[in-house]
């Protein structure tokens, strides 16, 4: 009899940071994972309420704690938003297939995020920054509906300072916003990268992903190098519950990060095409 | 083909040819039994049948077809459920054409693994008081007697309700087959686990079944769709019948009998017990 894969390990919330009006970043300690790939996710349990998958948004090199940015959506997320520092939650994971970090060495990297979709990409960015010298250009194109919905606002500047080209845009401007206005596809052309070779990682709402993929191909990025995180909710995270089974693929096992060609064979509904 | 079927088909053909309706809900043969079918072209009307195997209540589909003009083949109880749906604001009487079929009762459907060989008249049909729909745009007379049971098995085995409830799989077939169980977030489904948890079976089946009974009290038209759909054959309609009786005794009210009759306010007419 194996270990119980359904039972989470307890961890404490050591820090809570407000990101946007409906999103908070929770820092959990201890880090009960031996390691993970950016883009992987964990199942978080609010004891007595329920469990839901969340992308790990902290750096894999951070051995002390795990971070999750969580948007208030329903039962579980609402309860976790009511948590205070010191509260206990359950963690299982890491699950799924993350970003293709092995393929990134020496290449230009384009990271495209929308809204809370930046969470799994933050983990990647932090990972890349740790070994910045190993990669070519790194560009982040990030959009949100309004400036106040941009995630990690305090950090974005720091990323730029450490060698990331940052392009921000919002759908609707607010007072004091001087950046660009428009959906994220409008700024995709700005980064000047080696398009044929660059690895592209994207995550965001389904419609965004659809248009981003289309635009990326138009811009000349190679389909071989385009990846997106397609996140469908699930119950077990280990390929048993059937909830995230699309086509022949399980999001929890074969995803959430899919390569462009894999996505084309996914059934409608989840497929961005 | 019976005379009634012939008549039914000609009515439906006419409705479709004249484009009075976009589609007609009826029944078709399917193996040994009968199932619902959706007819939208005049040439398809030959599929339509009408006999004592047509137990499903087609009114269950009406709500999902709200935006369209549909014709519906309706037994007496089905008609009553249409009345209730109209009264409860769920369908628009103006957009449906009711083809009432006179009904002498239906058989219980064949069930997988059943040891019964013959066919049984459904128990709820033995209690039926409305052989013809109270609302009708067309009426197909059937005539004749109630179908004979092919083997005489005693009525439903509703003695030990608790153990009947225990059998329930909570598959929700009863709910989904019922024309009047259209709520989207009923507390018995357990998605909001305040009253009933989704997965706590059989622990919470008592509350599940009694709550459903309470929700159906004074509304159930005793069409038996729930009972006949139930894979483990819990005689649900019997339970709901008792509650309808309470309404009848206290208010002289029976659901689905007339479009103009509002459900009685939930108070006793006279002072009541003190």
């Amino acid at each position, binding site marked *: 009899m194996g270990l119980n894969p359904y039972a989470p390990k307890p961890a404490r919330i050591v820090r809570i940071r407000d990101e946007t009006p409906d999103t908070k970043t929770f820092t959990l300690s201890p880090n009960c994972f031996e390691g993970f790939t950016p883009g992987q996710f964990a199942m978080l349990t609010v004891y007595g309420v329920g469990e839901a998958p969340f992308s790990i948004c902290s750096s894999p090199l951070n051995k002390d704690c795990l971070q999750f940015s969580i948007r208030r959506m329903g039962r579980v997320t609402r*309860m976790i938003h009511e948590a205070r520092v010191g*509260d*206990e939650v359950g963690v299982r994971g890491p699950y799924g297939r993350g970003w293709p970090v092995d393929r990134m060495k020496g290449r230009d990297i384009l990271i495209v995020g929308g809204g809370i979709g930046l969470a799994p990409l933050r983990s990647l960015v932090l990972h890349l920054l740790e070994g910045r010298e190993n990669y070519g250009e790194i560009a982040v194109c990030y959009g949100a509906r309004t400036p106040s919905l941009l995630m990690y606002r305090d950090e974005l500047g720091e990323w730029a300072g450490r060698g990331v080209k940052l392009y921000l845009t919002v759908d609707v401007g607010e007072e004091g916003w001087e950046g660009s206005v428009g959906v994220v596809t409008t700024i995709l052309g700005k980064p000047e990268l080696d398009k044929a070779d660059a690895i592209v990682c994207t995550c965001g709402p389904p419609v965004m992903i659809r248009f981003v993929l289309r635009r990326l191909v138009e811009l000349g990025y190679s389909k071989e190098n385009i990846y997106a995180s397609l996140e469908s909710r699930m119950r077990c995270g280990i390929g048993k519950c059937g909830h995230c089974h699309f086509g022949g693929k399980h999001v929890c096992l074969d995803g959430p990060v899919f390569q462009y060609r894999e996505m084309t064979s996914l059934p409608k509904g989840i497929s961005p095409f | 083909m019976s005379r009634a079927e012939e008549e039914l088909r000609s009515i439906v053909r006419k409705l479709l040819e004249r484009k009075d309706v976009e589609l007609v809900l009826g029944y078709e043969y399917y193996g040994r039994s009968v199932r619902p079918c959706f007819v939208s072209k005049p040439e398809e009307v030959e599929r339509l049948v009408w006999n004592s195997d047509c137990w499903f209540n087609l009114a269950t589909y009406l709500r999902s077809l709200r935006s369209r003009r549909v014709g519906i083949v309706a037994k007496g109880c089905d008609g009553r459920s249409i009345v209730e749906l109209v009264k409860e*604001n*769920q369908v628009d009487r103006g957009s449906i054409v009711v083809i009432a079929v006179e009904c002498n009762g239906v058989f219980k459907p064949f069930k997988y693994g059943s040891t019964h060989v013959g066919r049984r008249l459904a128990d709820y049909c033995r209690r039926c008081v409305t052989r013809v729909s109270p609302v009708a745009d067309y009426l197909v007379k059937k005539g004749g007697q109630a179908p004979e049971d092919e083997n005489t098995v005693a009525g439903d085995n509703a003695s030990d309700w608790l153990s009947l409830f225990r059998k329930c799989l909570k598959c929700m077939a009863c709910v989904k087959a019922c024309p009047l169980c259209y*709520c989207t977030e*009923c507390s018995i489904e357990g998605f909001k686990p*305040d009253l009933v948890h989704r997965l706590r079976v059989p622990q919470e089946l008592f509350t599940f079944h009694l709550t459903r009974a309470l929700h159906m009290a004074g509304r159930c038209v005793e069409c038996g769709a729930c009972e006949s759909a139930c894979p483990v054959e819990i005689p649900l309609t019997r339970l709901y019948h008792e509650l309808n009786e309470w309404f009848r005794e206290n208010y002289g009210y029976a659901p689905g009998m007339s479009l103009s009759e509002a459900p009685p*306010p939930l108070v006793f007419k006279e002072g009541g017990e003190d």
Partner: protein
Amino acid sequence: MRRVTIVLCTCYSTLLGEIDFERLRSFFSDSPLVEKILVSDRLCEKNVFENLGLDDDRVVVAACSTRLLEAVFKGSGGFNGLVEFVNIREQCAKACGNREEATWKAIRLVKGAVQKALHAEPLSTEGLKIVKEALVIGGGIAGVRCALDIADAGYRVYLVEKEPSIGGVMAQLDKTFPTLDCSICIEGPLLSEAGRNRNITIIPNAEVVEVKGVVGDFKVRIRVNPTYVDPDKCNGCGECVNVCPVYQPNKYDADLKPVKAIYCPFAQAVPLKYVINRDYCVECGLCMKACTRAAINLEDKPKTVELNVGAIVVAVGSDLFDPRLKPEYHYGEYENVITNMEFERIICASGPTGGILLKRDGKPAKRVAFIQCVGSRESGAGIEECSYYCCAASMKEARLILEHDREARVFIFYNELRAFGKGWEDLLYRRCLEDGVVFIRSRPSEIRRTGDGSLLIVYEDTLTGSRGELEVDMVVLALGFKPSSRMIELAERLGVTVDKHGFIEEAHAKMRPLETRVRGIFVAGTCHGPRDIVESAVEGSGAAALVTSLFGRSSLRLPEYARVSLEKCTGCGRCLASCEYGAIVREGDKVRVLESVCNGCGSCLAACPQEAITLGNWGLEQLSPMVSAMLED
């Protein structure tokens, strides 16, 4: 994660002997649902609870009588719905046989309350705004008294009257019982005071067409009917009247005395402005020429006035029973069968006959009979109840006849003579007897006309059992009050209910006699049942007091009312039949709760299968875990 703080109170240590607080404490200190446990010995004292610093927490207070404590907490403001109360004094310490049982029970009850607090949703503590202006509908004595009292308290009042002048029935009366003082003489000054008062805006010729909103903030739409005379320009000189060629019956004079098509209903009218009755006007334009101030505009159109008020008083009075519905009395056919309102005008010095009791043929009426209870105290067309004022009114009118003419013979056909008011026995009944008024206990079966045109009353004296016939010159029918269908229409617009007769219904006949079921809408005068001037005035003042007491508050919180989630509601209407207050109405394909009508009984919650309705923290969401926890082993 949600957790609950438990506050235990030992009630000045008196409960220590009866409940094992240590056990209680240790039981819950083990629970992961409990944040902390605090013990106090005097929670009910001022500021003790506040000083615990539990403002945003979910709290279970286990202490004495919930009623008592809750009042203390609610008084301290900011009642956010996250505090649960358990009565461990009366329900555990005092109700159980021994300490162990009491402790066991206390644990159960607290367990339940913990679950309830855990599932509670914070309630909004925001107050409603209160627009400190009032609307009074109807300018009879009740409405005028009310408007004056509100205005005197310093608030603006809009007084909407459907007729050209305020005054109501009282302005039409000759004298008032029991003192027989001149009606318009005592009402007139009030009317002109209302006209002068800076805080009162009289809107005559107007009707309320729509009311929306809640107590403190009603939006009211009023239609002002055209009068064809600009009230701002008209100074009441009356030049126009002189030139107007057409006459019309004057409603004020019970249609007995003609006035011109451009007219002012009576001399003391407020506002004293002329108006044109377009039903009679022939559009000759003579008045336009005569008016030096160019006030007349035959193109006048209805206008709409929008008001935003915090409270509404309904004082629209009531109509009188239509005597034609009793054909045996031949009203409208025999011209000397008149109503008591007509009588009031005839006997009035300013009335059509200058105060002399004349028959239609101009001859004096020497023998006058009153028939009581026409349209009251009988089933059928009228109301079953006593109409309150008519016995007194008829006795008053009898005395007026005899004051005018000592020789006259007056008969009163009564069923029961009711003289219950202050001074009625003395000033009305005894005086009538002394003056020789004949009281006959009977409801006459028929009035016939004799050859010479006098009237023959056929009756059976129910005291003696004998049948009789009485010949008189004039019969006055004492009409009961009977609300008109227009009033019922108005009630619907306001969202208030009417009783089986059509009178406006009080929130509670005894305890809230001047309130309607809609919070912020009050009622005064005969529109909610028969009464006399004194009571109408008393009620006007009473309603004014309620309005000013409402306006005196800085903010207002409606008691918790049912809220429908439109997302969830399927519009099935099952809640409708469950609401005893009729507070739920269909709106589109969903339903809406009238916030000001809802009494917060929660009946609809229990009826809605979708759990689409919430009311405070009384849903299944809170109660079901609570009950389960109490029963859990």
